[in-house]
């Protein structure tokens, strides 16, 4: 512990000299993995087309195909360009095309004078009223149109096959659009939308933002689907399960936990085991000892053993001998177990809840911290840079989050529900101690950090402020380090040692949950990513919901490409920015 603290202190000493430009500099010292540009992209309604184009272009260029063929291929291979190329290399071009229903017979010239027998309606139609698909089958336009309408209404827009028997070919989308729009323009629109949204629906790496009401955006990740992202609408979520960000819990753990908390199943469990509902007023009644003839607060007396109201069969004198007591032993065992389970759950839930509550309370600190910083600046101290305050606050948010989610994690990791067969009792005990040690350390430091951040340091003298500054900076580094170590422990020693790797967690991000950057829209040269990316990417940061981004967002709105549906609150602080910038706003 000690050496870690002192070494990071040094880090901070050197960084402080040039940290006037704020958190970015400091962050680079705390950063454990090399910083990389944000790999998550927001796909808005407007940029959806552009997002597809990239992949389409790659396939079209490599295979020298027309766009609709490339799209058919990509839909078939779920927009996995790498997989598509792998199939191409492994099995060859013909196999790739045949599998996806792409046929390249390019002869569209129908002898327009002659008539054609359409095999569907069995009518002779003039050649001009018939259409030949790429696969070479031709039918009359009327039958094609009917076919397309049926398929679109069936939700098959993405793979409308040719009408000929055993013909696997996917129909040319241009022909579909053209024919359908003549009769049902709205249906043609629907068809187009389905094709467009296939990029989201059929793509493992792209998902709709789960915001409600829906912000209209989708998020694309680059390489790891186990990650947590923040949409440009401000919502933070787990990309894998679309629930709220819950790392270090795995998605399954989190699902179980929320369900458990939601229906308070343990409490219900306890109530069912420990109480009986009164046969008269139906309130649950708990027995407080003594004999098995209990009386409810409403005055009704009943037999505890069978729950029956006492009447002619159950009287004071005769309850001892009756037969409904034969399951008593079993019931006691069950009661014991239920009680133990409940206590265990309560232990973890209380801590989880306490930290979540603290987190909520600490969120209110943003405002007071801003005040404190401006007070300090007015005091004209020697110290000019107060990024350590926002830095510390942000670190507090981040580690508080980790801490609160670490409790549901521990509940399942060391409980009987999930990993009963994976570890022996002794193994589990050792691992639990190991984990709890780290958790305790983290907890202690988070609380300390919280205490110092809440100090009214703007009213202190310069020396005291410097002292607090030192402590806050140190604690920030320590908690970050501890979070990282706890994740290492979880990933390597706990989850990593399991036989079945179904519990993957989003990795620890010291900087917080990654904000997805807006995808560059190629058709508007005014808005390019290079303009905004540097500022945004380095400001990736967690916790600050609805943070105000002074750079970029304005220009976006002007160029008419922004699809942000939610108005941004102007009053919040962006913790990523140096204090001066915040104050200027």
């Amino acid at each position: 512990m000690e050496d870690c603290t002192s070494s990071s202190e040094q880090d901070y000493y050197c960084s402080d000299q040039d940290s006037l430009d704020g958190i970015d500099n400091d962050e680079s010292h705390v950063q454990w993995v090399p910083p990389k540009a944000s790999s998550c992209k927001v796909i808005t309604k407007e940029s959806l087309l552009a997002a597809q184009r990239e992949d389409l272009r790659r396939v079209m260029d490599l295979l020298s195909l027309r766009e609709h063929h490339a799209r058919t291929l990509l839909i078939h291979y779920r927009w996995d360009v790498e997989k598509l190329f792998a199939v191409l290399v492994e099995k060859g071009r013909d196999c790739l095309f045949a599998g996806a229903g792409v046929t390249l017979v390019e002869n569209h010239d129908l002898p327009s004078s002659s008539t054609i027998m359409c095999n569907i309606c069995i009518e002779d139609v003039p050649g001009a009223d018939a259409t030949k698909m790429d696969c070479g089958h031709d039918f009359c336009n009327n039958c094609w149109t009917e076919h397309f309408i049926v398929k679109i209404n069936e939700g098959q827009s993405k793979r409308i096959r040719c009408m000929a028997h055993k013909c696997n070919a996917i129909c040319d989308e241009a022909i579909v659009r053209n024919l359908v729009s003549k009769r049902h323009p709205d249906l043609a629109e629907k068809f187009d939308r389905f094709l467009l949204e296939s990029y989201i629906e059929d793509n493992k790496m792209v998902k709709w933002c789960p915001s409600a009401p829906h912000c209209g955006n989708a998020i694309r990740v680059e390489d790891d689907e186990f990650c947590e992202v923040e949409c440009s609408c401000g919502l933070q979520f787990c990309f894998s399960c679309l629930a709220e960000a819950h790392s270090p819990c795995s998605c399954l753990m989190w699902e179980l936990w929320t369900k458990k908390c939601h229906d308070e199943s343990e409490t219900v469990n306890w109530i069912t085991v420990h109480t009986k509902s009164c046969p008269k007023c139906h309130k649950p009644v708990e027995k407080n000892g003594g004999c098995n003839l209990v009386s409810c607060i409403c005055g009704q007396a009943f037999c505890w053993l069978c729950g029956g109201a006492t009447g002619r069969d159950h009287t004071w004198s005769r309850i001892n001998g009756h037969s409904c007591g034969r399951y008593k032993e079993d019931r006691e065992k069950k009661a014991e177990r239920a009680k133990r389970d409940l206590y265990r759950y309560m232990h973890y839930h209380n801590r989880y809840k306490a930290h979540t509550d603290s987190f909520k309370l600490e969120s209110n600190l943003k405002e007071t911290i801003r005040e404190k910083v401006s007070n300090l600046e007015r005091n004209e101290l020697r110290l000019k840079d107060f990024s350590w305050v926002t830095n510390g606050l942000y670190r507090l948010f981040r580690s508080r989050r980790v801490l609160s989610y670490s409790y549901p994690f521990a509940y399942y990791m060391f409980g009987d529900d999930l990993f009963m067969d994976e570890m022996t009792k002794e193994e589990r005990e050792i691992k639990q101690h190991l984990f709890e040690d780290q958790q305790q350390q983290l907890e202690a430091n988070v609380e300390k950090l919280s205490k110092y951040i809440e100090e009214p340091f703007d009213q202190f003298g310069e020396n005291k402020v410097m002292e607090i500054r030192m402590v806050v900076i140190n604690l920030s580094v320590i908690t970050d380090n501890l979070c990282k170590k706890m994740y290492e422990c979880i990933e390597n020693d706990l989850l990593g040692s399991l036989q079945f790797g179904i519990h993957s967690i989003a990795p620890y991000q010291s900087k917080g949950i990654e904000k997805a950057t807006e995808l560059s829209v190629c058709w508007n040269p005014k808005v390019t990513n290079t303009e905004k990316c540097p500022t945004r990417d380095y400001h990736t940061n967690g916790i600050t919901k609805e943070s105000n981004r002074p750079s970029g967002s304005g220009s976006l709105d002007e160029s008419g490409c922004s699809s942000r549906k939610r108005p941004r609150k102007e009053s919040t602080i962006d913790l990523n920015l140096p204090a001066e910038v915040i104050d200027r706003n």
Partner: protein
Amino acid sequence: MQASRARLFKEYKEVQREKAADPDIQLACDDSNIFKWTALIKGPSETPFEGGVFQLAFSVPEQYPLQPPQVRFLTKIFHPNVHFKTGEICLDILKNAWSPAWTLQSVCRAIIALMAHPEPDSPLNCDSGNLLRSGDIRGYQSMARMYTRLAAMSKKG
């Protein structure tokens, strides 16, 4: 709707004209409803169904031919891909492999082909499928022949 009616009418005329062309199939349309058809098909030779005449009922949807007709056996038949009680048929072209290029006549032909070549791996009649899958060809054939005799042959012989 008009399209399906027109197409069925065409098929009806075709059936009338080519009655002699395929003696194994007799398709007939319900007198009052062009969307209801019945067919009599002969059991294919060198199968346990040889000598039997099986009745099929067609129920044609309004989206026909873009959607497949519903077909079931009215005559009881012991076959892995036909439901023993309801007569429902498990045949790919009647489900997802349907193509509008099929006609009622060609569907009948496909069903005759299915009778000769059962698919025991997707059975609707598990008893029948299990006999075939366990390699008990004789057992399957004698069961199938028994039901053909009982249900699909005129009582005189």
